[in-house]
């Protein structure tokens, strides 16, 4: 059945289908609608979860850590400063191999403070060991939450998952969503029953000291699970497709990439805009396609290399970058292509930081002016006049 839902409601409805025993969150824009709707479901008796209202995101992450270790499926949602405040716990959740799911309503990071969308928040925890997805639209957000628990809880993975959705652009957008019934959800996602949990009947020690003789081995094991996750993700997305008929990609999704000379790469809702643009370009006879990076961790190096193997021009559009280096996704793709025989023209285009609108016309202009002589790092729609008048920019 199709429902016309706000993205945040889609998340709440999907989380409800997963039946987490414990939910804990702290309010932060633009995540609030998700946790408000979940609170209401609990208040109405429609969702039998313990909803723990905490004093910070740091505690929200810690509460779901404790709940997960005690054997419960657990959930939280946050964004931006909240995700950064969680950071210490996020590394801990991954290191303790606890399969919680967290929604991140992507937003910029302060300073200056800005509540609007970009993806800098998620990028800051990319080395945490957490699996990270970026959803293109609200159907994908909805479907991803069911897939996320199944992936996280797979014994070969046993790692937390963050489902990223662009703040406001998706969280506050109303879109038709093809829904899943509770029965279907239960068939797809069985109840969580971990082998090890905090239990007086079988007392175990969690969160030990690993001295230099042990620490490296635990990190190695996590890397192996990240690698295994690629296989598990492919299997679960296939299974989802079989059951529900929908497939939005596994690690990546390619769109009209056959015979493409040029490919644009992006993550999240921007992919939708790019698909529209590429349809128009294809209609005009241009050989161009889209590569959506759906799973950012584990990073699908091989899949990207394969998809881009005969491509001459690659434009990576990013809503975040690494200060002092440049595009993050760009550099990871560049690294993936190091083993490839081709040397495409590969450039990074930073777009939409702090919620700056990304009109199709700007993307089209970027595409039309693309060439090998551009610098590696480019900023789309940068307001030169404002920089001149208000900011000090030293000569490099």
């Amino acid at each position, binding site marked *: 059945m199709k429902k016309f839902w706000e993205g945040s409601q889609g998340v709440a409805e999907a989380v409800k289908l997963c039946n987490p*025993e*414990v939910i*804990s969150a702290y309010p932060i824009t633009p995540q609030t609608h998700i946790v408000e709707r979940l609170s209401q479901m609990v208040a109405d008796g429609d969702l*039998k*979860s*313990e909803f*723990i*209202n*905490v*004093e*910070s995101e*740091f*505690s929200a992450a*810690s*509460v*779901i*850590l*404790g*709940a*997960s*270790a*005690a*054997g*419960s499926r*657990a959930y939280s949602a946050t964004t931006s400063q909240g995700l950064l405040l969680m950071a*210490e*716990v996020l590394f*801990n959740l991954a290191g*303790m191999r606890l399969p919680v799911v967290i929604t991140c309503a992507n937003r910029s990071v302060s300073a200056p403070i800005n509540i609007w969308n970009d993806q800098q928040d998620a990028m800051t925890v990319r080395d945490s060991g957490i699996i990270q997805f970026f959803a293109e639209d609200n159907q994908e957000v909805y479907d991803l939450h069911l897939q996320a628990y199944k992936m996280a809880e797979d014994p070969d993975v046993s790692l937390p998952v963050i489902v990223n959705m662009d703040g406001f652009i998706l969280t506050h957008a109303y879109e038709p969503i093809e829904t899943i019934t509770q029965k279907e959800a239960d068939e797809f996602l069985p109840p969580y029953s971990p082998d090890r949990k*905090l*239990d*007086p009947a*079988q*007392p*175990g*020690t*969690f*969160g*030990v*000291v*690993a*001295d230099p003789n*042990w620490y490296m081995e635990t990190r190695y094991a996590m890397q192996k699970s990240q690698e295994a996750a690629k296989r598990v993700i492919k299997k679960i997305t296939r299974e989802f497709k079989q059951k529900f008929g929908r497939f939005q990609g596994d690690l990546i999704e390619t769109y009209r990439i056959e015979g493409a000379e040029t490919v644009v790469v992006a993550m999240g809702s921007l992919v939708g805009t790019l698909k529209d643009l590429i349809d128009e370009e294809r209609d005009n006879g241009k050989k161009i396609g889209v590569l959506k990076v759906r799973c950012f961790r584990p990073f699908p190096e091989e899949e990207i290399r394969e998809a881009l193997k005969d491509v001459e021009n690659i434009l990576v559009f990013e809503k975040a970058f690494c200060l002092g280096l440049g595009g993050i996704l760009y550099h990871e793709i560049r690294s993936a292509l190091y083993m490839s025989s081709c040397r495409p023209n590969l450039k990074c285009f930073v777009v939409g930081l702090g919620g700056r609108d990304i009109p199709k016309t700007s993307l089209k202009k970027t595409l039309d002016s693309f060439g090998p002589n551009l610098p590696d790092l480019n900023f789309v729609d940068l307001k030169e006049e404002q920089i001149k008048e208000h900011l000090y920019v030293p000569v490099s």
Partner: protein
Amino acid sequence: MSQLAEQKENLIAPGHNACAGCGLVLAARLVLNAAGPDVIVTNATGCLEVTSTNYPYSAWRVPWIHSLFENASAVASGIEASLKAQGKLGKVKVIAQGGDGATADIGMMCLSGMWERGHDILYVCYDNEAYMNTGIQRSSLTPFDASTSTSPSGKASLGNPTLKKDMPAIALAHRLPYVATASVAYPQDLEKKVKKALSITGPKYLQIHSPCPLGWGFKTALTIKSAKLAVQTGLYPLFEYENGQLISVRKIAKPQPVEAYLKDQLRFRHLFKNEEGKKQIEKIQELANQNIKKYGLTG
């Protein structure tokens, strides 16, 4: 006969690597043995955690979890919520524990949140009055004038310049149904308080004075003597509050002068060197006198 003697098997096994004379491990053993095996324990980073869980060994015979320095109470909140969802809460008790730094400094926000939300959890603070695990740095529970590695005495310093943070008062401000202090020097009192706390539903706070031979600078055989003197001078009053009312105090028949407590400890040695130090000892005596009066310790 105390619970400790009755227990055939301690719930903390003796294989930990804490220092000889460690008051903290002794206190933790008393707490656990009083609580019994049907508990889940969360532990903050600190001496107790590092000395008891060096992989592949663990000294814990109860389900035990350590996450971070500052989140033992938030992790415990999640465990309590999970037990509630599983219908096991009550049958299984939750204890969160940490040192004075983990409790009164870095973990204060999580602890206040846990108390305010009313979780059914006993929080135990093992108060050894400084960051011992990192090398004796001062915390907000370090006593007035104690010399630590970050509040050293010197030509221009008499040691820690601040008064001990009043954690029981902060706990009481959260309207906790049970708040108490205890000491390793009085094991039966300590065990009784643990049992009582666990019989009450809701958030509880127990602060246990746990001398540290290395950090305080006294001979390892003097742990109990030091702890006892802290109580008998009035510097560490033992009391119990139930529903905001003071219901019991450990009386001191004849209070000892504070010098008796201070003189055996290197952290106070500088106070015995000159006239200025002597004046400081008078101030410390005044703190003890205030406690004696406030809690009616001699009455």
